[in-house]
């Protein structure tokens, strides 16, 4: 109400020509800034291509019908309404938008870690997410990165850096959208935790705790125990009735965040490469009964039976650069012996659900490893090292979506899901294949 009145006041005070001018300006600015090639209400029928639905079916010469940002139908015989815009895709491949299950896209380097405190579960990465301008190619406005879109990436998981023990809450976002709010798929998608050397060196170099793996683990346990007590205390207060009720204990954002983990509303994403660190993660997850996902996992293949048995998924770093955790080989020589090129295949064959992620920081030098746009190429590499092609594609689409808890919206081409899909000029795992078009939320958002 208040806002409406404000606007009215504002309108009264502005002359009509000025308003008209600013409207024209505004509209043209918007059109320029967003550079959206189509409106959200457009109906598209993508016809004639080879559709990899990633839901089990491959449809040669099928049709995908998009309406109001959602996939209305997909199949070999789809009724196309006359008002639909037809996109001819004969000879092309059509698949869901790529899901990068771990990257730091859109996060300024200095915003990744709060090195004054090893434990900050209350921090949300979404508050540091700035995918605009400098991170882009200076195209202005709020257009998302053509860099990522050129690789077909439409959904990403972003999280705090790996220098803290508990960095905070990761988020799942889209790589396009007119406003930040539109981009968010899950604001709090996980609690991001790091074991092993990165936090140890970050704080140890300042002669601060945690200096050892033991203190890293006990710090996590201590935090979880406090969270358990916090939850109990608040529950007790809520049980009390009437006059017994005392003012509720003050809210504690950190404890609330850890509480989500304990209530299994979100999983813990624990970055761990060495088998001993992975075992520590499993031990703590069992003690406190929370859902666990292993990140990076360069040595996870060694524990593949255990991970399969406990149904713990692994988000692997890029095949070309498996040590995504920033542990240099010089620092940890044992890492060097851990690298198994076939790790993705070994894990998958043992029954572990895997996603292949870029772990990209941005572009170029600072991006340790691969640039976000080459996720498909990393999947191709994994298949060169024994992973079945279908599994490689699942690892960057539906499996990634399931691990991120967003498979109700993205990850496959099925009725009712978000219309995020890509059209490629060849098989997605061939090196010379290029993404030709990207549809995001039912709009054509990238065209080569």
């Amino acid at each position, binding site marked *: 109400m208040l806002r409406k009145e404000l606007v009215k006041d504002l309108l009264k005070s502005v002359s009509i020509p000025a308003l008209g001018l600013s409207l024209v300006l505004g509209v043209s600015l918007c059109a320029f800034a967003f550079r959206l090639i189509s409106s959200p209400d457009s109906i598209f029928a993508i016809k004639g291509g080879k559709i990899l639905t990633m839901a089990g079916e491959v449809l040669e010469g099928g049709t995908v019908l998009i309406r109001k940002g959602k996939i209305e139908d997909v199949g070999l015989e789809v009724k196309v309404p006359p008002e639909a815009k037809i996109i001819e895709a004969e000879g092309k491949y059509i698949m869901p938008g790529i899901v990068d299950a771990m990257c730091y896209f859109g996060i300024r380097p200095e915003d990744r870690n709060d090195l004054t405190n090893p434990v900050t579960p209350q921090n949300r990465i979404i508050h540091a997410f700035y995918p605009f301008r*400098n991170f882009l190619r200076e195209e202005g406005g709020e257009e998302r990165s053509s860099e990522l879109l050129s690789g077909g990436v439409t959904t990403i998981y972003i999280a705090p850096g790996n220098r803290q023990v508990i960095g905070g809450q990761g988020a799942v976002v889209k790589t396009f959208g007119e406003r930040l709010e539109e981009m968010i798929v899950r604001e709090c998608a996980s609690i991001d935790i790091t074991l092993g050397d990165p936090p140890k060196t970050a704080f140890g170099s300042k002669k601060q705790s945690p200096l050892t793996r033991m203190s890293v683990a006990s710090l996590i346990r201590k935090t979880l125990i406090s969270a358990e007590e916090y939850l109990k205390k608040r529950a007790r207060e809520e049980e009390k009735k009437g006059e017994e009720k005392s003012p509720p204990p003050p809210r504690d954002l950190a404890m609330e965040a850890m509480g989500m983990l304990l209530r299994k509303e979100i999983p813990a994403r624990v970055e761990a490469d060495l088998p001993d660190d992975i075992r520590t993660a499993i031990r703590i997850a069992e003690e406190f009964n929370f859902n666990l996902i292993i990140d990076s996992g360069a040595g996870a293949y060694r524990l593949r039976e255990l991970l399969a048995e406990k149904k713990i998924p692994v988000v692997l770093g890029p095949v070309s650069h498996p040590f995504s955790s*920033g542990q240099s*080989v010089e620092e940890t020589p044992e890492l060097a012996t851990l690298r198994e090129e076939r790790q993705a295949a070994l894990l998958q064959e043992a029954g572990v659900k895997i996603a292949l992620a870029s772990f990209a920081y941005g572009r170029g030098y600072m991006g340790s490893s691969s640039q976000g746009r080459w996720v498909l190429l990393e999947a191709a590499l994994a298949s060169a090292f*024994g992973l079945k092609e279908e599994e490689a594609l699942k690892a960057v689409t539906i499996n990634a979506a399931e691990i991120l808890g967003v498979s109700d919206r993205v990850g496959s081409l099925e009725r009712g899901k978000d219309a995020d899909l890509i059209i490629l000029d060849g098989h997605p795992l061939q*090196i010379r294949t290029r993404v030709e078009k990207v549809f995001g939320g039912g709009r054509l958002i990238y065209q080569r």
Partner: protein
Amino acid sequence: MKKTRKLEDKEKKKGTLKGIAILFVVATFVPSLLEPGESLLAIKGGKILTMAGRVYEDGSLIIKKGKIWKVGKAISIPKGARIVDAQGKYVMPGIIDSMCYFGVRPFSLNSSEPVTPENRIVDAYYVFGELMRGPGGIQAEEELLCGGVTTVYIAPGSAQLIGGQGAVLKTFGRDYESLILRESASIDMTLAYAPLAESGMPSSNPPSRMSSMALLRKSLLEAQDYLKKIEEYEKMSEDEKKKSQKPSRDLGKEALASLLERKIPARIEADFVDDILAAIRLADEFKLDLVIDSGIGAYKVREILAKKKIPVVLGPPSHPIDYVSHLNNLIELQQLESERNASLLLDAGVKISISSQAKDFGGSGKATQGRWLLLEAALATGFGLSEEEALKAVTINAAQILGVADRVGSLEPGKDADVVILDGHPLRVETHVEKVFIDGCLSYEREKEE
């Protein structure tokens, strides 16, 4: 050595009856590692991409004393030659990475002074121990060898104006000295944002591009004077020499003098068009042989580069930026055209090579790991480069730019027997390097998957 032993073990398994034969094989093969001079090897039956213009289907390659002796289609295999069956395989020269920092500790890359031409990277090359993942000693660097990389150019980092002298080395050898192809292969310079004082680099660095260029010119002028003084002294008669004092040696000026004498080229890292043009201006003024490194914006001045015959050593197409400070400023990269940098340069007639610019492997390393260089070349074919040119960019062209084409880069009689055998076309993702020979020695063999 480890791999070779495995090979022996395999052969031993064949049975005791063949004992004598094994003894013979071991006797000829093990010394072949230590003294390549003794070996006679025939790689038979593969598709040979010589990179010297010819492709032999079902060809043969004969290696003698660590050198390529014969290569062709119907050549007779000499008696006593150890035969490597390459039926259905691809055979090509070892891959050459024309720019990487492999084997150099990160903190050994840059000095605190902006101009140190006397520094030689070869003195910081440490390929053993932890950096080599092995227990020390002369062991092949599998990380690079499994990508087929047999020769690398390494150089000082890019935080200085003149970092020092780059070197060309092999990735495997019987001892340290045998690794070295060219100890002093170039003077490595950087013209960019990185060496400027404002970018957080040592404050002794000049604060602007203008002052950078002035400092470079000053250094070269001093080297000219130095060279003149030396030449004057050398021209003197013995009597005169006795009377006058011999000019004292100055290592830095000496290094720059070899640049002025065109014994070695200047490798100037420059991405922005203005930096590239400044490099060209410098080379013109002092008549230097120039090679542009990285060159993200080089396609914009391709006609000039072609006309002046200046080659460009490109970075990896997947990660064209070498340092993050570029990100906000480099308009050259922000255009789709830049993806086709390699093919645009080549079509204009510029000689190019594609390099990894890798700092080491994995996590802390930049972008591409050295081993994926072939993949980077393959990537360039997706942006308009022909397959042949992509392969040349990581073999013969790279060798020519590095000034070592008389030894490596193609499979031709007389050249070093640096040979890679692959299980498929070198530019496919699914292809793996199966065997690598350096100086005729089997230095890497891919383990068979069960």
